[in-house]
Each structure stands twice: as structure tokens, then as C-alpha cells.
């Protein structure tokens, strides 16, 4: 009961949170986060988050979808079950385009969502702060900073003072 899970602080002003994000990052904290009701532009950059790799995952999906489509149409039509239909070739690039396209899109979409879920570890139906009232406001109208207790620089009092100094309201320690 007494072990702290982390420190939580609320911000209301979007410009203040931008500065705070940068300061916390500069102070060397690594296991921390800002929870916001909507994506704030540039906040991830200010927090020092590196560019997401999700585009590469999507691209993999595109390649997978496209090669499946080409392989499927070529192999079934020109190898496994040769049949002259309407005088068209057994496999022509022309008639393969619609399905090539659709499966590329399908592959991209599925891999994008899988990538998103993987990178964000969704679904995770538990969060150490989930019962905290401040934390719940993050989906409503408040920018909520959380600094986890397993961060190397974490110290319940100092971190709380630090957050207050950045302009955070209602700073308090959350116990696990």
C-alpha cells in the first residue's frame, strides 16, 4: 500500500504543458507520460519521442497484400488450373490490377492496425493510475502528467516539487 506507483499532476493550459514536457524530458526522466484528451501537435516532439516506425509496418502490409494478390492470381490461373476464358491470357497484368489493388489496401490496413495495437500495447485493460480521479480527467479536459516510480530519477517528494514548479495543479502521489 505504501509503495508509490508514481506522481501525477494536472495541467490546463496547452502552452504550459508544451514547456513542461520539454523540461521533464531535459531533466532526464524516461518513464513518464502526458495523457491528453486529444492529440496536441508537437507535444510528442517536446517529450522527446522518436519518430514512429508504424509506416514501415504498414508498408510491409502493402508488400504482403500485393504479392499475395499477384501470386494467387498467377498461380491459380497460369499454373494450377489452366483454362481459356474469353480468350484472355491465363495471367495478364491488366485483369490482375483490381485484386492487386484491393489486397494491397487490405494488407496495409490490417498491418497498420496490428502495428498500432502492438506499439501501443492495446488492449491493456489495466493501468496503475486507473483509479485516480485526476487520471480520469485526461480523457475529458485536462493534460495529465504521470511520472512512474520505476524511473531512475524518481523520488516521491522531489518529483512532486519539480512538477509543481512546472505549473502542475493537484500534484499527488499515487500508490499501487
Amino acid at each position, binding site marked *: 500500500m505504501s509503495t508509490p506507483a508514481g506522481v501525477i499532476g494536472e495541467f490546463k493550459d496547452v502552452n504550459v504543458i508544451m514547456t513542461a514536457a520539454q523540461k521533464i524530458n531535459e531533466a532526464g526522466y524516461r518513464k513518464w507520460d502526458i495523457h491528453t484528451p486529444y492529440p496536441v*501537435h508537437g507535444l510528442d516532439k517536446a517529450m522527446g519521442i522518436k519518430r514512429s516506425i508504424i*509506416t514501415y509496418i504498414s508498408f510491409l502490409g502493402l508488400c504482403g497484400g500485393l504479392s499475395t494478390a499477384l501470386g494467387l492470381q498467377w498461380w491459380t490461373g497460369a499454373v494450377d488450373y489452366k483454362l481459356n476464358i474469353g*480468350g*484472355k491470357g491465363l495471367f495478364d497484368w*491488366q*485483369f490482375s*490490377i483490381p485484386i492487386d489493388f484491393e489486397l494491397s489496401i487490405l494488407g496495409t490496413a490490417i498491418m497498420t492496425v496490428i502495428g498500432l495495437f502492438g506499439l501501443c500495447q492495446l488492449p491493456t485493460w489495466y493501468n496503475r493510475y486507473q483509479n485516480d480521479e485526476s487520471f480520469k480527467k485526461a480523457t475529458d479536459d485536462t493534460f495529465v502528467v504521470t511520472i512512474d516510480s520505476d524511473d531512475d530519477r524518481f523520488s516521491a517528494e522531489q518529483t512532486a516539487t519539480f512538477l509543481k514548479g512546472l505549473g502542475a495543479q493537484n500534484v499527488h502521489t499515487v500508490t499501487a
Partner: protein
Amino acid sequence: MSQLVNLGSSPLIGKIQRYGMILTVLGAVGLGAAYAVGGGLQRMMGDYLLGFWYFAGISVTMVFFSALQYLTRAGWSSSIRRIAENFAGMVPFMLVGFLPVIINLFSHSSIYEWTHESALTDPILIHKAGYLNTQFLIIRLTLYALLWFGMYRVIVGNSIKQDTMPGDHRPTEKNWTLAAPMVLIYALSISFCSFDLLMSLEPHWFSTMFGVYTFAGHFVAAISVITLMTVALYRGGHLKGYIRDEHFHDLGKLMFAFSVFWTYIAFSQYFIIWYANLPEETVYFTARTSHGWQYMGIALVIMHFIVPFMVLLRQDVKRKTNILVAAAIIILISHYIDLAWIILPAVGHVSGSEGMMFGWQELTGWIFFAGLFMMLAARAYKKNSAMAVNDPVLAESKEYVV
């Protein structure tokens, strides 16, 4: 900001004017040479048509681009809209540009097969004579020229009028109201003009998609020209603060989207005809996929689609001006190939040449009109402000974020 931005004396505009002049002279000499030693009247006319329609199409589309910005009340583009308008300088002179085509109709061996004597005994052409006849074509071409001049007067005219009327937004409001009918006029006139000038080169052939197809080509080419000029102005240090990364991003996005759109239209047209395999329609593509013309077709797929697609797909490159310039140039080259692929096989057929007809002659018309296009743009920059300085939504262009 309500001070006019006159770049008439800037080195950039000077350069455009100088090169324009050189190209015009070079092109005129070239066209003459094409006529005299390069293959005769028909070939020269084909090359003329290619050059003329390339830049005429782009110029009219520039007016359309501007009208579209008014129609959608676009804020982002208000600082670069004038770039499009300044490139529309050819529009008032369309009738002059049509003249050689019109005169050519009366030649016994014009590039249009339907004017030939053989058309009198061709049942299909007899059927079409109600539309494809010299008098009616002249009337139509005149009508297009007048309509386009009207569009130019309204859209570009009001846009320029706004420059000297700070605080009074009536010219802009007029354009907001009139943009819709102007877009409508553009859609109809550009389609029918492409039927008249291009599709009727193959008088038996027809495609309902053809108007949309040529529009798609003109539009992406116009965006590419705007991109080139925006980059040039930016590098020349002009319109500081008004040309931003965001504009490059958006222009890149439009180039990307519309080169894909062109591909979609081009593929659909080809695909439907390929699959149904009706001789009356496939004639167009068989002529263009044999005798060496197929290389142009392949070049189109690569340069009008694959290269721009690959180059512009990535997010971050749309802010690198070098890459945008490269993409724009590739698109402009492929737009040339596109029109050449439509026009030249038909002209080659009429002039009785076996095999692929492509040489230095084919560049002359393009060079001539490229020169005129640049000179008229330079003239516009000397006369008008380089930016729509009193546009009511100009501030958004300075501030918007993608």
C-alpha cells in the same frame, strides 16, 4: 499586408523573360524548319498542335485552379493563388493560337482525317458530319476561346482588382459567387475542346472518358508548374513568410494525388477497352502499342505514375524542394509524352509515315509555346502583384499548419 509585391524587376522574372524570348525564337525557327526540311506541313501542324495544346491546356487550367480555390474558399493557397493566375497569360490569346489549326482545316491534307475527301464516302464519318464539319468546328473553337477569355476576365480580373482595394472585399465575394459557374464552363469547354482537337484526330474512335482524361493530365501539369514557380520564388527570397513548408507539402500532396488520379483515369479507359476488345475501340490502343509507340506508353506508366508515386509517397520528402522540383519536372515531361502519345500516332498515320514518327521536329512546337508561356508569365509579373495581397483569407495562408 496590403502593399503590392511587384517582382517585375527581380532577376528571377528577368531570367524567365529572357529564356522565354530565346525559346520562342528557337521554337519558331524550329517549326519553320520542321515544315521546310523536317517532314512537311502535316508533321509541322502535329507538332504545333502538341505544343499549343500542352500550354493552352495548362493555361486554362490555371484559371480553373484559381476558380477552384475561390469555390472552396481555400485559405492555405491564397498566397500562391496568384502564381497560377500569372501563368494564365495565354488565355486571352487562344483564338490566335487556334488560327493555324483552323487554317489547316482548309488544306486538302489537313491533320484531321475527317476533313479529307475520303471522309465523304466513309459511312461513319458521314454520320458524324453533323458535328465534325469545318464550319461548326470553327464556331466551337471561337466559342471556347471566348468562354475562356470570359473566365479569365472574371476570375483573374477580380483577383487583381482586389489587390488595390484593401478592406473592400467585393471583388473576392464576386469570385466566390462566380467560381461555380466558371468551373462548370471549364469542365464542359475543356472536354469538348479535347474532343475537337485530339479525339477527332482518330475520327472513328470515341471514349466517354476522354475529357476527364485530358483534364487529369492538364491539372497535374498545372500543379507542377505552380510548384516549380513557388520553389523559384522561395529560393529567390520572395514572398517571405507567405511561402512556407506547408505550401510545399500541400503542393506535393496535390501532385501526388493527381498523378494517381490521372493513372486511375488512364488505366480505367485502357482497361475497359482492353477487356471488351471491340475493334472500333481497340484501334486507338493497337496503333499506340505498336511500331515503337509502345515505348511511349511504357514511359507514361513509369514517368506519369510509378516515379512520381514512389518519389512523393513519403511524408517528409514533400518538404524538400529539390525532390519536389524533380517530381514536377518528371510530371511535366510525362505530360508531354502523354499528349505526344495521343497526337503523334494519328498525325503519323495521316501523313503516311510507317512506324514511329518522333524526332527533333516534335520538340519545336513545345519549345515555341514554352517560350511564349514564359514571356507572358513574365509580363504578368511586371504588371501585377506577385501575391493576392488583399485577399481576405490571406492570413490563413501564413498561419496554417498541416
